[in-house]
């Protein structure tokens, strides 16, 4: 039987933003990285507080972000568990200096920060998202997708 006190203890995972942004971003297969964190104890309510770090080798493309390499480091925040394997991820400055890296960063900046570009027409992203979600998966008539 699972101890309720242990069940209430939160599971803590640390992820670099570049990895976390891909999880559930719906651009790639989702959940796979969290699945691979895979300490079974997490799901059984044990008191596990660990920090996970990851190393990403860009090889010139941020699209290679999914290449995750296990490291032998064990970094424990609580100090209660010393031997949980961890993975380290980072983006090398060299990679960001490459055109692809900065291009990808520009794409992210445009997604997350900037002013909309100049057009006096329409932006279809939201409607495309609606069609993807509703039309293709749920078979709702396209007329329903009209915004506004």
């Amino acid at each position, binding site marked *: 039987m699972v101890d309720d006190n242990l*069940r209430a203890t939160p599971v803590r995972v640390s992820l670099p933003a570049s990895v976390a942004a891909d999880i559930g971003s719906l651009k790639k297969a989702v959940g796979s990285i969290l699945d691979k964190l895979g300490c079974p104890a997490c799901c059984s309510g044990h008191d596990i507080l660990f920090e996970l770090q990851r190393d990403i080798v860009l090889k010139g493309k941020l699209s290679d972000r999914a290449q995750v390499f296990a490291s032998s480091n064990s970094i424990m925040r609580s100090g209660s568990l010393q031997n949980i394997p961890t993975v380290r991820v*980072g983006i090398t400055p060299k990679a960001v200096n490459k055109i692809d890296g900065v291009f990808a960063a520009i794409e992210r900046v*445009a997604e*997350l920060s*900037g002013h909309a570009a100049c057009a*006096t027409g329409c*932006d279809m992203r939201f409607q495309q998202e609606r069609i993807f979600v509703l039309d293709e998966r749920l078979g709702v008539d396209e007329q329903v997708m009209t915004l*506004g």
Partner: protein
Amino acid sequence: MAEYADFRPPKLGIGFIFSAGLRPFLQHNSSVLDVLEIEPQTLWLADDPFQGPFHEFTAGIDLIAELPGHKLVHSVGVPLGGTRPPCPAQSELLRATAARLDSPWISEHLSVAGTPHQAAGFLLPPLQTEKGVATAVRNIRRFAEMTDRPVAIETGVAYLARKPFEMSDGSFVARVVEEADCGILLDLHNLYCNELNGRNSIDSFLSEIPLERVWEVHLAGGVEMDGYWLDSHNGTMPKELFARAVEIIKKLPNLGALNFEIFDTFLNNIDFDIFDAITEELRFIWNLAGSESTVAVEIQSPVSESNIRDKPTSLIPSPEEWEHALTKSVWKCEHGKTIWSQDIEPLSLYTRLAQSFRGSMLAQALPRTMRYLLIREQGKISELMQRYFLSINPKLYTPLEANAFVKWLDEDETLDPLLRALTEYDIAFLNIIREGLPQIVKFPGNPASVFEALAEARMPEQPPPPTWEIEILPDSFTIDDFKSHTILS
């Protein structure tokens, strides 16, 4: 004002509006374009859309500077046709960017973007009266002083019909550029829209403007919606527009650049063959530039004030009244309150278009939140979004819009525990960029099954406890990357 009366633009060549979506095409053929036109505000953070401070993603500008070809700065945040004066903070950042990229001139829109304190969320047509001319001239002179560059104003699209008390489109532009002593960015697709939509013919417009002041031309593709041809930048230019451009370009003796506009969303959908076809068309047109410029161009006298005085002055709004009425109508969907009944339909269109941009900003910045809402609300999503659009004014910058939406969802009591966690997860990335600090997101359980369900367009179930705390660490770029060019207003 800085004196640019003798300015003649250098012959830069053909180009595209820069976006990350251009990457594969530049890799495919890095020398095919002579020019990259940069919209700097798309790489900024802003704490307030009007007053700033504004922070530039300097690494991005540095990369652009290193790419082959000439660079031109095309501002999208300081439209010069309304009573909102050009923002000093934005202008200073644009000045620095233009200097770094060695942009020979800066272009901005001869449009209205709302009132001085209220964004319409869309570029709207300026009031084409004497007072409208004076307003635009004042703005252009000020903008040129602050940016320390020659300024070219872009001719806009207008889905509204011209009012009886207004000058013709060409006369208005002619008056403005002559009095402000500036250049023209002739957007031929905008003119094409205006012609197809019955507002003004291209020939009529061109017969009224000083063609020697055209420094730059824009071309683009569009799409039909609700009986209007939209300037949607969604692909190749129409064949008819290409044919018109070939003839028009011959009459432009001082053309410095010919740039193509295509929105990132659509750039992702075209292949190398289409890109190559567009650039071949641009090159063909460019090679004809100015070839018939010795042909005398008859410049018609602009409409004088006396023509306008024939109309009852009580019906002529001030620029302030014009902007307020348009902005409120577009933002608040009060289309029926216009005194011009023919405007009801186009004002509805403006509302729809403005909302499409706001919705798309949210889909980009809050992908998990929006997917969850779409699945949960299904047919009621329009009603929900409409309530938001009517309640909250447009924020222009993605993080501001995203944060405003999440706050509104909370106040609207729309958040359930799972949606709250998803909004926190999405907002965490915006906060990391702005604050540069790790963010902790609480999830009611293992988020993997939630993300999987969203990807499959299934309504996710709330995961069982324990709670997960996901710490998201800054690792790619944060506010530090924006700090090297931050301008306080």
